[in-house]
């Protein structure tokens, strides 16, 4: 563990990622104090350019809503949806991959067939269809993103479990008469942890991009202010007020970049032999 932290801390790019990520988390946590009102409220005159008004430093959109409030509250939405969707997808993927890899045979073939099916359907289009059919809300968006992002986890975990199953310590557990569930959760899973963590951190980035894309198309939860929603609305005023669509985009870019840097840092630190790739 100590060696891992040391390796991670020596990776400057990963530390930059952690710093940006902490800043975004701080924005998300402080949003209710810094911008106590509803970010949808019209609080000032429309089309206030950033830096022209001390009270509304980030400017305002075409309805006179505070862009700063939108960006700070949007950080909450992005992080929560990205995090929860990934957690659900990892849970589903680990379960399916573990069962398939541990049991093998017919169960494996059936589950991998299902995984391939989900992987064939174009992910973003699939997410659009799911959200459109089940009506946009935070819950349906989270579940839709999870539904399109679990297959890579399942394949990864299945591969790990296939090789773990034939290892001696697992065979010893089976010989001792230990239950399947106990072997899977207590003995196999901890050995597959590292790649799951790396994949998970990169998946949060993809989930945030997917959520932004959905809400840009107008498929966001109509009750929450999301970065994609602001860009979608700002698009109509691109010629007159470039900053409305530009600022939230930079927020998405930095957040996703930070998550990718952290994910790669974790990968390098967990697989020291691959460092020079």
């Amino acid at each position, binding site marked *: 563990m100590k060696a891992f932290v040391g390796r991670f801390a020596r990776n400057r790019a990963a530390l930059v990622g952690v710093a940006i990520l902490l800043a975004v988390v701080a924005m998300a946590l402080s949003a209710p104090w810094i911008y106590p009102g509803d970010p949808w409220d019209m609080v000032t005159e429309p089309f206030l350019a950033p830096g022209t008004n001390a009270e509304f430093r980030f400017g305002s959109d075409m309805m006179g809503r505070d862009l700063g409030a939108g960006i700070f509250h949007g950080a909450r939405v992005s992080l929560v949806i990205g995090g929860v969707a990934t957690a659900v997808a990892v849970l589903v993927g680990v379960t399916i991959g573990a069962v398939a890899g541990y049991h093998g045979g017919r169960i494996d073939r059936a589950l991998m067939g299902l995984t391939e099916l989900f992987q064939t359907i174009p992910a973003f289009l699939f997410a659009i269809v799911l959200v*459109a059919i089940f009506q946009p809300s935070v819950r349906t968006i989270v579940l839709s993103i999870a539904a399109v992002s679990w297959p890579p986890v399942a394949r990864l975990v299945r591969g790990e479990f296939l090789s773990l199953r034939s290892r001696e310590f697992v065979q010893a557990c089976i010989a001792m008469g230990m239950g399947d569930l106990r072997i899977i959760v207590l003995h196999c899973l901890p050995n597959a942890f590292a790649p799951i963590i790396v994949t998970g951190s990169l998946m949060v980035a993809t989930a945030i991009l997917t959520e932004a894309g959905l809400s840009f*198309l107008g498929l966001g939860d109509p009750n929450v202010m999301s970065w994609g929603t602001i860009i979608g609305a700002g698009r109509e005023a691109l010629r007159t007020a470039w900053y409305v669509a530009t600022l939230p985009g930079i927020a998405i870019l930095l957040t996703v*970049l930070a998550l990718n840097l952290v994910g790669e840092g974790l990968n390098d630190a967990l697989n020291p032999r691959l460092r020079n790739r």
Partner: protein
Amino acid sequence: MPRLLRILAWRLLQAVPIIVGIAVFNFLLLHLAPGDAADVLAGEAGGATPEYIAELRARFGLDQPLPVQLGRYLANVATLDLGWSFRHQKSVTELIATRLPATLLLMLAAVATAFTLGVVAGVTAARFLRRWPDSLISVLALLAYATPIFWVGLMLILLFSVQLGWLPSGGIETVGADLAGLDRIVDIARHMVLPTLTLALFFLALYARLMRASMLEVYGQDFVTTARAKGLTERRVAYRHVLRNALLPMVTMLGLQIGSLLGGSVLVETVFGWPGLGRLAFEAVFQRDHNLLLGILLLSSLLVVIANVVVDLVYARLDPRIEVA
């Protein structure tokens, strides 16, 4: 049977259960959607008597038991009949057929751009490992990898259409210009520049990173040492010996990315008002035209299956060691 034909037959056979599975899945989604075609039509007409709705259901076969409906749906899909779009008053297949060429044009242009530039960038990065060209390419790739695709489109419009006025900001050709021949081709090409770049950027970054890793992998092999020992220049070693072998994994990647390319084109087509499949899907969402939306999803999945078969064939052609598994 010739080897390639055998591989083709085997891959097509493998694709059948996937295609059937996708069709069944689509059918289930269509039935999970609140409100069926009869409800939509009745709502359209501003309300209808329960008798009329029942009659409509009978006419569309919606009153039949679910397995019967599923059987009929699968038979229809097998003949490429994807149902009727009540909004457009056209068959879904016809609607898709009119929009598909624009999307394919955009996708092919984007893939070609991303692949070519990605290979060049990856080779350059690998040749100048840990020197400034490598660092520059890596940083740019990281940025491109993290940027939302629709935002890239908006920023390109802002720069090249609004500020500089060099390129059109949307559409596939100048409306009402009535151009013909070469003029029309040039006009369409000008309209294609920004959407193609937008769609290509993410994949360009992906290919650059993959190509770099793939090149480094091949650089470590013995035959490269042999080539160097023969006294070949580094340049020749890179392009004639390493590049050729490093391209193989990229071909597989091309096939894997078709699905996300289709997803990306929904966003790009929406930003640029490009009259393709993605734009059609976007319209279908807001017209609540589930038949059309699921038809597009089904056809896109089919495209992915076809692309994978093609990629496998190309791969088998490039690497004679591949055999039917």
